[in-house]
C-alpha cells in the first residue's frame, strides 16, 4: 500500500490506462504542458505527446462532440471539463450525441467516452464554479454516472470507467483533490455499479454521495457518542445505482438517510427515496430523510452555511430515530 492524494490517484489511473491502451487519449483545456487546471494530467504530456494529450481551445461544446466522433471511430477519449458548472455548455454533446449514439443507431456503435469533471464547493469559488449537477446526468439513459470520494475509489473507478465501452460521466470533488489515502501498489480496479459499505452499522442506513461520505463518517462518530450506530454506504455509482446493497441495508436498519452536496430538491436523493418507498416501503420504520444543499445558488462567502455537513446528517439520523413502530 502507499499514500497518495486524490488528484494523483486520478493522474495515476489516466497514466496507467494510457500506457496499457494506445487508443486512450486525453482531451481538454490546459491538459497539455500545464498538466490541467487542478494538475490531474501533470507529466502526461511529456510521456504521451500532443497527439494523445490534446490541449484544446476553450470550446467545451466542440470537444464533447469531438469525443463522440473520435469514440465512434475507435478511440477511447477521456474529456476533462474543468469545472462541472461548464457542463452546461456541452450538454448537447453529452446528452443528445454521446448518450444516444449507441441506442439510436441500433447498437451499431460503441461510444467509450469518459467525461471527467470536478464538482462541488468548499473553495469559495462562487455560484458558477461549485455546483453538483449529477442528477441531470443520472436522468439520461445511455450514460453511467460515477462519483468517488477517496483516493482508492477514484483511481479504481477511473480505470474501470476508461475500460468501459459505455459513456461515463465521472464526477470528482474538487475539495477532495488534496485528500490523502492508501491505495495498493499493484494494479486494481473498482467496479462500476457497486456501492461500498464504508462503515457497518445497525440503526440507520446513511447513503452518501461524494464528499458527504466523509461527513457521514464524521456524523457516525458523533452519533456513536449517543449510542447510535449508523451504516455508511458510499453510493459510488449514481447511475445505475446499487439497489441490492442499499435495499439490503434498509432491510436491516429500517431507517434511511440520504446525503448529497447537490441541491436537495429534485436531487439524486429523491430517486433513492422514491425507489425505496416504491419497492420496500414495508421495511421502513421511519420517514426517509434527505440531506442536501438549500435551494439557492452557492453564495461566495456564505459557503459554510450553505454546504451540507455532518451536523445536518446527525440531525437527520436523529429524526429517523424519533419513532419506533
Amino acid at each position, binding site marked *: 500500500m502507499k499514500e497518495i492524494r486524490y488528484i494523483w490517484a486520478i493522474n495515476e489511473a489516466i497514466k496507467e490506462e494510457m500506457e496499457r491502451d494506445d487508443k486512450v487519449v486525453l482531451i481538454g483545456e490546459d491538459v497539455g504542458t500545464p498538466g490541467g487546471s487542478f494538475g490531474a494530467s501533470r507529466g502526461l504530456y511529456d510521456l504521451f505527446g500532443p497527439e494523445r494529450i*490534446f490541449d484544446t481551445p476553450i470550446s467545451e461544446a*466542440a470537444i464533447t462532440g469531438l469525443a463522440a466522433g473520435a469514440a*465512434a*471511430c*475507435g478511440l477511447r477519449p477521456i474529456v476533462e471539463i474543468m469545472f462541472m458548472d461548464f457542463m452546461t455548455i456541452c450538454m*448537447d454533446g453529452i446528452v*443528445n450525441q454521446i448518450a444516444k449514439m449507441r441506442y439510436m443507431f*441500433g447498437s*451499431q456503435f460503441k461510444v467509450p467516452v469518459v467525461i471527467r469533471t470536478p464538482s462541488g464547493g468548499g473553495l469559495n469559488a462562487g455560484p458558477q464554479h461549485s455546483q453538483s449537477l449529477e442528477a441531470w446526468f443520472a436522468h439520461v439513459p445511455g450514460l453511467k454516472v460515477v462519483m468517488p470520494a477517496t483516493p482508492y475509489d477514484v483511481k479504481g473507478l477511473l480505470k474501470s470507467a476508461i475500460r468501459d465501452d*459505455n459513456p461515463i460521466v465521472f464526477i470528482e470533488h474538487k475539495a477532495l483533490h488534496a485528500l490523502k489515502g492508501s491505495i495498493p501498489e499493484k494494479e486494481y480496479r473498482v467496479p462500476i455499479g457497486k456501492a461500498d459499505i464504508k462503515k457497518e452499522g445497525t440503526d440507520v442506513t446513511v447513503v452518501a454521495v461524494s464528499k458527504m461520505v466523509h461527513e457521514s463518517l464524521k456524523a457516525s462518530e458523533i452519533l456513536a457518542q449517543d449510542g447510535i450506530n449508523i451504516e455508511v454506504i458510499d453510493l459510488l455509482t449514481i447511475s445505475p445505482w446499487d439497489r441490492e446493497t442499499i435495499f439490503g441495508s434498509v432491510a436491516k436498519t429500517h431507517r434511511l438517510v440520504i446525503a448529497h452536496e447537490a441541491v436537495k430538491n429534485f436531487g439524486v436523493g429523491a430517486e433513492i427515496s422514491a425507489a425505496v418507498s416504491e419497492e420496500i416501503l414495508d421495511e421502513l420504520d421511519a420517514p426517509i430523510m434527505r440531506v442536501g444543499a438549500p435551494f439557492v445558488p452557492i453564495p461566495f462567502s456564505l459557503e459554510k452555511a450553505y454546504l451540507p455537513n455532518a451536523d445536518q446528517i446527525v440531525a437527520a439520523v436523529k429524526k429517523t430515530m424519533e419513532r419506533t413502530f
Partner: protein
Amino acid sequence: MRKPGKKKLIQIYKKMVTIRKVEEKLMEVFSTGEIPGFIHVCIGQEATPVAVCSWLKDSDYMSTTHRGHGHALAKGIDLNLFMAELFGKSAGYCRGRSGSMHIADPKTGILGANGIVGGGIPIATGAAFASQYKKSGQVTVCFFGEGATNEGTFHESLNIASIRKLPIVYVCENNGWAEFTPQKTHMPIKKVADRARAYDMPGAVVPNDILKIYEKAGEAVERARKGQGPTLLEIKSTRWHGHFVGDAQKYRLEKEVAAAKKKDCIADFEKKLLKDKTLRKAEIKKIADMVNQRIEGAVDFARKSPLPDQSELMDDLYV
C-alpha cells in the same frame, strides 16, 4: 485529374438520378402516412453529395444532417436497409430507432444524420482527429447547411480542425433557407465561405454544378488526404421543396421557387452528357428504369419488414 472519365460520369449521373428518384418516391409514400415522423428532402441539391462522395472510399467518414438522404446514398448506404429504416422497420440500419433524421452506417463510414443543427460538425471533427491519430489516411467529409454556420459548434470545430490540420472537408450546402427563413435574415454576409478566414482555412464558393463541385471537392479531399488540413466549401445550392415534406412553403415567392427549379443540377448535367455523347437518350431511359426498379424493390423490402418488436425496446442501451 479533376476531370471525371466517362465511366465516372455515368456513375455520377446514376447516383444523382437515384437520389432524386428515391426522394420523389419518399414524398409520395410519406404523403400516404406509411413513413412516420418527419422527412426532409434534398431535391435540387443532388450535385453536392454525389460530387463530394465520388472522392471518398468506404472507409472514409461522413457526417450529415436532417437533410441527409442524398449524402447517405452518395456515400454508399444500402438502399433496402435505408428504406426500411425510414419506414421504422426492424430490418432498417438502426432497427427502426433512428428514422430519416439519424440514419447511420459504420460500414460505409456514415457517422449519422443528426437532428441537432450543428450537432454533426464536432462529431465529424472528432472522426478526423481519430484518423489523424491513427495515421490511417482516412478523410472525413462534414455536410451542413448555411443555417448551421450560425451555431457555435461550427465556429469551435473549424477552429480546432485548423489548429490540428485535421483531414476533413467542411461542405456547406447553402440553399438560401433555414427552415422558413432566408439567409439574409440570419447572416450579415453573403458568402459563408468568407467565414473560413477566421480559422486561417481555405474557403471557396462553388456553384451548383456537378463538375465544378467535383473539381473543388477533389482538391479539398486531396488536401485533407495529404495532411495539409481542412477546407471549407460553400455550394450555392437550391432547395426546391419545403423544409420538410408537407411544408407548402407559402413563405417563398412562386417565382423564386420556379427559378430554383429551373436551376436543375441533374437536367443540366444530363444535357451535357447528351451533348458530349457520353450518354444517349435510350441509355438515360434505361438508367431511369433501372433506378426505379431498385427503388420499388427497396420500398417493397421496407414494407415487408416487420416493425421492431416491443420486446426490443430495452435492448442494448449499454454494451
